[in-house]
């Protein structure tokens, strides 16, 4: 068995550690490129959402590299993600690929298939100390890669040399791929944190513009797909925070492991959107309200074109934007999105935010002058 799995930001780092330690041979998915997208677009249904096309391209590139088993997650809806696996399986079958599709689905579609898929993905036995230890390490690594990205978003606008920041973080992620034990991981973690702490910071005269990112879990995170909006913003001197994370995505499926931020966001979404509408619809609304209350200057909403939950969220975000006087930039991403157009829109958006900030400062100064 040679297994493979789809990309999602640095998920391949964690899974690339997990499976070999469990004794499963893997074919790491080749990096996401324009070619991956082209393959997916050619073979997937025309109106399917973008992540389906990209992950299909992923799978095919991995199969060409020798993979014969595909690991994929299912779902219970109403978002289309839960049905990706079924459609992709049909497409691969029709293409004549002889691969085994291991779909881990919700136990409500049968406890036995669920356990079987889990067993295959865990390399034979689920409940063993070794599996637990290895899984814990992979989880820590996934968490750490996300922490690194959070740091990158926050620091890009503050450091003196952006290349240095990229070098530290990309280097750390490359080193993480070769980690074999918890001790290795701790060393990488400590050294990276030290390196990040000594990065020289730029002196910033005015207050930083803060922008939050909300949206669909794949497109809002995967920088290869969303034209690295975070980097564009960071290069323009904007402090970026992303409300979307894979760790959160996994944790929120169980009631007890939901983070405080998530629950807070859901609570804040309630006046606007009263129930879960699939995917990250309610998270997008809630996180936007949360950013508004935390004093962020703007929000970028990233989603695949035709994404159902996010379109509901988009309709509702118009109201949030008005109520909190918060500019929101909606960016629908698909194979037809062009980089130049996107960059122009982001730049114009940052211009708006800068002007608003200046205008507000002037009016504040004006107020104090009058009152004194």
């Amino acid at each position: 068995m040679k297994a493979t799995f789809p990309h999602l930001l640095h998920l391949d780092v964690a899974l690339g550690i997990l499976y070999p330690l469990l004794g499963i041979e893997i074919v790491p998915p080749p990096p996401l490129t324009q070619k991956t997208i082209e393959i997916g677009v050619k073979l997937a249904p025309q109106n399917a959402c973008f992540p389906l096309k990209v992950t299909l391209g992923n799978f095919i590139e991995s199969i060409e590299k020798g993979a014969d088993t595909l690991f994929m997650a299912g779902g219970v809806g109403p978002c289309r993600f839960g049905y990706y696996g079924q459609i992709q399986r049909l497409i691969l079958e029709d293409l004549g690929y002889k691969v085994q599709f291991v779909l881990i689905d919700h136990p409500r579609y049968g406890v036995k298939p669920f356990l079987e898929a889990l067993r295959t993905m865990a390399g034979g036995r689920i409940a063993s100390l070794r599996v637990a230890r290895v899984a814990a390490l992979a989880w820590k690594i996934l968490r750490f890669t996300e922490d690194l990205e959070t740091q990158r978003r926050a620091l890009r606008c503050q450091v003196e040399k952006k290349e240095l920041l990229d070098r530290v973080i990309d280097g750390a992620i490359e080193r993480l791929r070769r980690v074999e034990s918890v001790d290795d991981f701790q060393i990488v973690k400590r050294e990276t944190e030290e390196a990040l702490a000594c990065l020289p910071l730029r002196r910033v005269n005015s207050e930083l513009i803060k922008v939050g990112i909300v949206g669909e879990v794949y497109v809002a995170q995967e920088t290869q797909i969303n034209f690295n909006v975070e980097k564009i913003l960071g290069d323009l001197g904007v402090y970026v925070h992303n409300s979307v994370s894979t760790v959160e995505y996994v944790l929120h499926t169980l009631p007890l492991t939901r983070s405080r931020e998530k629950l807070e966001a859901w609570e804040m979404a309630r006046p606007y959107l009263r129930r879960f509408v699939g995917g990250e619809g309610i998270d997008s609304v809630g996180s936007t309200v949360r950013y508004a209350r935390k004093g962020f200057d703007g929000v970028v909403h990233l989603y695949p074109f035709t994404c159902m939950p996010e379109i509901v969220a988009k309709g509702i975000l118009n109201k949030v934007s008005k109520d909190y006087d918060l500019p929101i930039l909606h960016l629908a991403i698909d194979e037809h999105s062009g980089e130049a157009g996107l960059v122009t829109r982001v730049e114009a958006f940052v211009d708006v935010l800068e002007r608003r900030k200046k205008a507000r400062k002037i009016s504040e100064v004006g107020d104090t002058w009058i009152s004194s």
Partner: protein
Amino acid sequence: MAIRVGIPRGLLFYRFYVLWKTFLEELGLEVVVSPPTNKLVVQRGLTYGVEEICFPVKVFLGHVLAIKDRVDFLFVPRMVSFYRGEYNCPKILGLPDLVRNLFGIQPERLVDGEINMRDAGIRGWRKGFLELGKTWERSERKILRALERAEKAHLFYRRELKKGFLPENFIDQKPPSLLEEKKVLLLGHTYLTGDSYINMGIVQKINALGYGVITQDMVDEGKVRKYLRLVQKPSFWTISNEIVGAALLYLKEKDPAVKGYIHLVSFECGPDSLVGELIERWIKREEKTIPYLRLEIDEHTGEAGLVTRLEAFVDMMEWRQNHHESNLSASFTS
């Protein structure tokens, strides 16, 4: 004067109109339905809706605008699920929130009780209607009695549809035209196949070309569900599942009168983008296939283009009929 409750003529209206109307009337309310879709309704929906949302939702929002100021209450129940273990599309789940936030309707005027049979089954159904009915009626017994009568009327309506009525024929008392000899299976959400303004009279057009029409609402539900089980994991969207079930039913039972499939989808439809692919691939895998046409409609669809495609499709069906070919490519999509 009786309290006036408005039902926008769109989306699930075509499925539950009789149920909702009877339920509300049994509670002593006056039901106002927005006029049949027309140019103004569509334009308003396009102007005040969300840009990227699918066409039927835009039309629905146009209908809301058409009646919202003429009624005391707006009836937009949140139909989360009306089949155990399944959902409706996210846009239908979030519909009341969209209506409230887009048009600034006061929450107390918008009746949006949640009907959710996904986990609770029939209890979720009752609970939802109790919540809806409590807006106007305090006695639970009276609400349940109204619901019981409404359900009876609903079953009658569904039975009438099985006889070959289209929702429109039934609601506006237009007699259906039945051509028995040659038929096409018209798949698609009822709010597309049932609204002859937004589908540009496709049923009449098909009839004029000499073909009768069967929709998935005219097929026995039990059979639809039985054939749906052929799929390894059916989707979680009720109406899309019915579409798949009906398609597989005719694919496997091979009714000689059914000469082709037309799948009517709105451009932005999420569920149908995947389910359509599923149907297409199942058709292609059959040895003796059947012509399949996917027609996408949205606000930009032109009538001339639709007619051309239909005519070409009919030509193909006839040609196939005359040549008894079975090894032709199964489908072409638009």
